[in-house]
């Protein structure tokens, strides 16, 4: 009898344990938080500007994340979900402007500006640079002083020259 009770209680514990485990695992949403955040990271809600959706603490953003989870569970892919949010709330939900229309400027201006800067600098250099009179210059490699440590000597020269300049 006693053995039966013990066995029964073991069985009960086991069943309950399984149920508990099941409840716990049932609480784990099918698409994981990490999967949701992977997409949420690239989105911005229109209210909390400049805070990515994956880290925004507001209730509205939590609901958006749940929506992403729902869509993932329904089998939507990343692009479909992003398109859905753009359709609902406009381009601003995306972390970078979609390359279309005037938005091209946001991608083209920086490289063009930097290349223009390089070009201007290059031109300026060319116009500044005078032909170097080699006899005026000290560090002429062919006539380098024959010493034990040329770098050391050159450095001391430089040091002395700078001290003189001050």
């Amino acid at each position: 009898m006693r053995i039966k009770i013990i066995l029964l209680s073991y069985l009960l514990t086991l069943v309950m344990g399984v149920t508990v485990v099941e409840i716990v695992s049932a609480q784990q949403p099918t698409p994981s938080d990490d999967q949701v955040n992977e997409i949420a990271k690239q989105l911005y809600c229109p209210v909390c500007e400049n805070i990515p959706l994956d880290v925004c603490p507001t209730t509205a953003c939590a609901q958006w994340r749940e929506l992403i989870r729902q869509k993932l569970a329904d089998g939507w892919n990343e692009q479909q979900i992003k398109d859905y949010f753009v359709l609902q709330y406009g381009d601003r939900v995306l972390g970078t402007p979609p390359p279309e229309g005037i938005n091209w400027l946001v991608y083209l201006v920086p490289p063009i500006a930097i290349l223009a800067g390089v070009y201007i600098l290059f031109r300026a250099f060319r116009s500044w640079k005078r032909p170097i009179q080699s006899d005026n210059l000290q560090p002429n490699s062919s006539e380098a002083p024959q010493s034990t440590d040329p770098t050391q000597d050159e450095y001391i020269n430089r040091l002395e020259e700078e001290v003189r300049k001050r």
Partner: protein
Amino acid sequence: MVANLGYATLIITFLVSIYGVVAAYLGARRNSHALVDSARNAMLLTFPLLTISALAIIYLLINGHYEVQYVTEVTSNSMPLYLKITALWGGQAGSLLFWSWLMSAFASAVTLRKWDRDREFLPWVTLVSLVTLAFFLILSIFVENPFISFWHTPTGSITTAMFRPAGTSLFIPQDGNGLNPLLRHPGMIIHPPMLYLGFVAFVIPYAFAIAALVTGRTDARWIRLTRRWTIVAWVFLSLGLVLGMRWAYDVLGWGGYWGWDPVENSAFMPWLIGTAFLHSVIVQEKRGMLKQWNMVLIILTYDLVIFGTFLTRSGVLSSVHAFAQSAIGPLFFGFIGVTFITSMILVIYRWDDLKSDVEMTSWFSREALFLLNNLLFFGLFIVIFWGVIFPVLSEALGIVGQKIPSLSSIFTGQKVTVGPQWYEGIVWLPFAGLLLLMGIAPLSSWQYSTAKTIGRAMWKPSLASLLVVIGLVLVGFRSLPALLGFWLCSFVIFVTFYEFWRAAWARHHARNENLLLAFWFMIGKNRRRYGGYIIHLGMILMAIGILGIELFQEQTQGTIPQGGQIEIGQYTVKFDSLSVFDTADGRNVARAVVSVYKDGRYIGELHPRRDYYYESQQPMTIAGVRSTPEDDLYVLLVDWQPLSTSAATFKIYHNPLVWWLWFGSIVFILGSVVAAWPSKEPEMVMVSKSIPETSKA
């Protein structure tokens, strides 16, 4: 009463400033010492006057005078005293006054120096400082008055006005709204003053630049005079930025330190141009070149400082920092436009005087490399400026699409977000270029260097840095960006140490000094140079931290029951308990206790929490962080089950090496102190100008 006193003092200060501007102008025109001295005295008077005004607000804040609108907006009964005092810069109206107060402090300090040798600069420096001050006072008096009070109208509504409108009575709320919770962090208490100190200090070199332009003394004199001011401004601005980063890391709960937010960018832009200026003035001092360029840089820095102040405090480009919305936009833009155009007209007027005395002679000379450094800093500025204004621009240009329907598909007028991905996709290249320059430039000589001379100087540090890369590959690093980044960092570190070593060794040999002593005297002999190198080292350490978190950050999120655990990398985080309670200062706190294990070994407890502020109905996520030089474990409490508190959601970041970001900032402050330390023989610097440069020219 106190409010009236504060407001009256503001008006008097404004009148004194206007008087100072006029007196300085007339004094300079008529060459009248008496008028110039009077203008200087006006400048000196603004500081005690503004101190009275600032103290008036502080008095109102401390004593809970909620009839004053600003006091209601930023304080509440439950706030501790120190927060009530620092609420002076917790809102727009107060921080504008705070700006003016700091500005007058700096400008007064400048006018107190000895002016015997540069008397012709004095009226113009006073004038520029006072014009800037007057502009901010206009904002405080007419637009963002911190002394405005609430009034009860006979109809029962509440109105705000400085003085009592007819038929109304003073309305005194029982309690205030309290300071924005995000601002109640030690980092946020020091961050704005540091940033503002950096901002206002940059006004001084600008004022000297304008003085040099007006008086025609366009040699390097103005640069020598403001050398230390520029470094001080730069240090404060850098410190302000770093504190802001630390604040974001601790308080905003996104696991990072920099979000490329418009407000962060607006403080970063003057830093970029200011840093370019800091380097290119050395070229003017040493070689008499880039005079026009230096003028442009300091003018731009000044206007970016004003732009930055405006962006922080207006809602035009709304962002997490833009707590306040106000109508001061047109005034700011007007002032920026007027000062920029006037300054540039002066530069064009003096264009020929500002031509270089000498020419560039070599592609690898130090001046050429400095110019390249300027190009990279300027490029970074262009990128960031474009990223900041593009969303506003694209929205505003929607009007074109509306007017011309055929263009409506191009000019949609849709507001877009230019987020971190965009910035990070571009800025890495100029940053990598700057790191490379940091390694090469110290090895180049003024006037003449060739690939050969530089190559000869750099082969040893290059070899050492390549060994580091080989070591990293052998350990298992395969990420190309990481290898490139760490190679650059190690290269600069080796070059810098090599430079220190060579100079100390040369001195040790030449003078028979003890090596340590030689090292010490060598730094003392040329503080700016070696201070600069220490700053470079600090920057490199920061770069290591940035590379670590940017390239190797891991994150995971999960909901776990009590006793459950989440794993990330070598770490295991176990959820022990969660308690929810109210605090005396009006917060509802949910505080979790988690145990942290590394490779299965218990290493400690963390307490991530979520504070909910009843007054402002705002939640705040405070991470539990374990920080070591190797990595940070950063745990956020995202959610929990309110009744049972038996399960909770945690977001966990693993941020390798980010500790070095903060450590590096301490090193660069140390370097700045070395660079800005007063020199014992300042007169020698001036005399040296008359010595002809015969050695190489």
